[in-house]
């Protein structure tokens, strides 16, 4: 008998990174790695499940900036070259690792890269969005949208620009998926009272928040985080489940840290002899991850003490973890059903890139999990938030607390002493964009192009990724450069427009670089 529901939500996002001005660019690797290690494996996983007749429903975000990159011909072409190189390298590796403990891992990588190359080039002709769209059309995936460039809504200066991020995101979704989205992933789950009104205006039905948003909401939630609440505007909020997050995310107790799983930090790009590996690196010759890894976690040992990866051991471990996850969910939903007086929904959102990129066996875990849910029990069903709202349209009304899913639960990751300098510039650009939209309604010709491009530069500057990267101190110079570049271009366009001196050559150059959202409508800022 059905006891409850599990909503797996995979949030796939990357900032828009595209540098046509260089023949290759390091930060574009984020996309290529994610395609090889996460998006293609997820497509394989879901397509195989469909072929097998397994019943499931999973929610995925494919953010607008990610969709624009996946659909971009230049990036598609560069990825095609990249996967071809990986196939060539692993062909060589098969020979080199023959009769060594590394051969099975080398074979695994080679087979995967060959299959990925075929899927990418032959089945989808470079556009993986088609694959996800098919899965949605077949009814197994519900794809939700996100703000245009993953902009951090609470730190924007006013509702007009928040509204613009939401609407640009929804329109881009409609362009790629042929329908209007029902749900939205708020960037960083950043909610503040009032944002729900903007979501309602955009026709959205639900969004996701972190656990404390509902637990600290007003009034107290009768059903905790195991049923949605209806915000004042009528849009439903679903809260992240703490227990399932810990089981997968936790650095200490999470599944990915198991000794049998593949070690992320031992990569052929660093381990190999320089002369051998150089043709497969960027032209600067600097070592970097290639996604070919031959060692397992092993335990708490130094990196040079890691032991060879054994795919069969990892597979067995994955099955055990899928079993564990299901047993935990069964115990959870049986208790919750009694407590809350209806079938609970356990909402388990994760960054999609966890599965495959950070946790190599993640897609395999999902495959086993989904199959086990389908074949081996009948108390838990995989559904999406939309499905739950169709079953339970009456829910408690509540104003959730302002919150995020970032470290410490609020806005500190995005506004702190390292990042505060961003906001006066961002807010000034926001103010000016509204001014431009009001001064130049119904623009045509060169003015229309310049206004659209100004809107693009603004949304690119608003990407929450820049502040995140600065705070987490990863590729800080790049994040600073990106923010400054977009503010500079916006400011230049603003000045050119209001002084009636648009430099068409410069405009064309900027358009060719920052070509996100061809459909953008600057009048959304009016």
């Amino acid at each position, binding site marked *: 008998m059905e006891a409850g529901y599990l909503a797996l939500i995979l949030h796939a996002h990357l900032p828009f990174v595209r540098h046509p001005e260089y023949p290759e660019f390091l930060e574009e690797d984020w996309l290529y790695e994610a395609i090889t290690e996460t998006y293609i494996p997820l497509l394989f996983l879901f397509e195989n499940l469909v072929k097998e007749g397994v019943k499931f429903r999973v929610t995925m975000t494919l953010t607008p900036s990610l969709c624009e990159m996946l659909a971009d011909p230049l990036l598609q072409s560069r990825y095609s070259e990249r996967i071809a190189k990986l196939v060539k390298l692993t062909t060589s590796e098969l020979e080199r690792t023959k009769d060594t403990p590394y051969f099975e891992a080398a074979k695994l990588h080679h087979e995967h890269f060959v299959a990925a190359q075929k899927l990418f080039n032959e089945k989808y002709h470079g556009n993986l969005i088609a694959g996800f769209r098919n899965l949605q059309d077949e009814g197994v995936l519900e794809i939700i949208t996100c703000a245009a460039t993953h902009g951090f809504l609470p730190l924007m200066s006013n509702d007009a620009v928040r509204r613009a991020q939401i609407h640009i995101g929804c329109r881009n979704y409609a362009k790629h998926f042929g329908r209007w989205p029902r749900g939205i992933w708020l960037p960083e789950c950043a909610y503040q009272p009032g944002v729900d009104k903007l979501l309602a205006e955009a026709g959205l039905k639900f969004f996701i928040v972190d656990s404390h948003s509902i637990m600290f909401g007003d009034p107290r939630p009768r059903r905790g985080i195991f049923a949605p609440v209806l915000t004042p505007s009528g849009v439903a909020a679903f809260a992240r489940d703490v227990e399932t997050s810990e089981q997968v995310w936790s650095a200490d107790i999470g599944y990915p840290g198991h000794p049998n799983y593949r070690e992320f*930090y031992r990569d052929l790009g660093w381990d190999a002899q320089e002369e051998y590996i150089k043709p497969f690196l960027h032209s600067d010759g600097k070592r970097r991850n290639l996604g070919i890894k031959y060692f397992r976690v092993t335990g708490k040992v130094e990196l040079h003490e890691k032991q060879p990866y054994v795919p069969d051991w990892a597979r067995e471990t994955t099955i055990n973890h899928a079993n564990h996850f299901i047993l935990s969910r069964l115990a959870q939903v049986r*208790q919750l059903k009694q407590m809350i007086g209806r079938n609970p929904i356990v909402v388990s959102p994760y960054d999609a890139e966890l599965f495959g990129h950070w946790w190599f066996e993640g897609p395999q875990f999902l495959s086993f999990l989904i199959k086990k849910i389908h074949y081996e029990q009948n108390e838990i069903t995989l559904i999406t938030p939309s499905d739950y709202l169709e079953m339970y349209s009456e829910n408690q009304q509540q104003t959730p607390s302002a919150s995020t899913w970032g470290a410490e639960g609020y*806005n500190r990751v995005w506004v702190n002493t390292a990042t505060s300098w961003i906001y006066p510039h961002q807010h000034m650009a926001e103010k000016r964009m509204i001014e431009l939209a009001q001064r130049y309604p119904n623009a045509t010709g060169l003015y229309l192009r310049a206004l659209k491009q100004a809107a693009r530069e603004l949304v690119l500057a608003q990407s929450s990724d820049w502040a995140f990267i600065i705070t987490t101190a990863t590729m800080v110079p790049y994040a600073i450069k990106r923010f400054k570049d977009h503010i500079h271009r916006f400011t230049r366009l603003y000045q050119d427009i209001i002084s009636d001196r648009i430099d068409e050559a410069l405009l064309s150059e900027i358009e060719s670089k920052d070509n996100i959202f061809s459909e953008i409508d600057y009048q959304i800022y009016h």
Partner: protein
Amino acid sequence: MVMSQSSFFPSHQLEIVSETPIAELIEERITKPSQEIFIDKGLEIPDSYDVDTIRAMLQDPFHIWVYWNVRPQVFDKLKAVFPQHIAESFSPVLKVTELTFNDVKFINILESGDYWLSVLPDKHYHIEVGMLSSERGYIRLLEADEITTPRGTISKNIDPEPEYKIVGQDFADNLRASGFAAFAGMLGPERVMNALPENVSSILSTVSSGESLQDDQIDNLPPRIRALLKELQERGEGGDLTLLAFLYLIPEYLREAVAEVEGLFADALHPHHVAPRYMVGSSEHRPYPSRNPWLPSMTNKTISF
């Protein structure tokens, strides 16, 4: 490409032929995750904008960040209205009003800058930039949008709808199931008080009941706060003022007192763990980047116009 049996994996019967030992390569990569020297620092952006502006942004339940810019001509125009000796008595201030209790605080500032405010959860703040004069009082120049700090804990409000009403042990069970076990132990103000150090809870009880603080209670305060309250007492300015001063100083006091309780900061699993960054991080704890040293200022009289 055919490779010899020699390989670059050190852990088996394979010879290391890499010119750099693997351990060093790995160590180098881990300690220097970004080896690339990036020389593109981005295009130029303005240092500032010639506009009058103020904006307040929430960081967390205990901090608001505010930035402002007031152009010199605004101050010049204002000062031109008054005789020189009065004009010279004005200085720029940040006026922070907590709207629930209408508590007002003035902070000396420069014409342009930013500030990390220490605030309290579940409160509504209105922040302005203005000019303050001992002769003529306060004149507002700019105001930011009102900002509300998150509660940071469970709501006191219980849904009146019978279907959604939840109290007592039922809600405690709900909290535990949702992963909020620490809060299950804190339902009810008496439990909150019991959780605090005794010297803190005793003072809070006294203050909240409207009684005057005793000498031994004041002696238990951190030195800075004790000195201020003692001074006010000695000036004979009375219990009301002492109470008012203490209410302003509660956030400071709680931070310092709670910091002394072992485990509250360090132990993330302590049921009443307080993240240290909630206790510090405001501009009071930073050197103020100005020509003039800044001290927290509090009015000791109501300003009226």
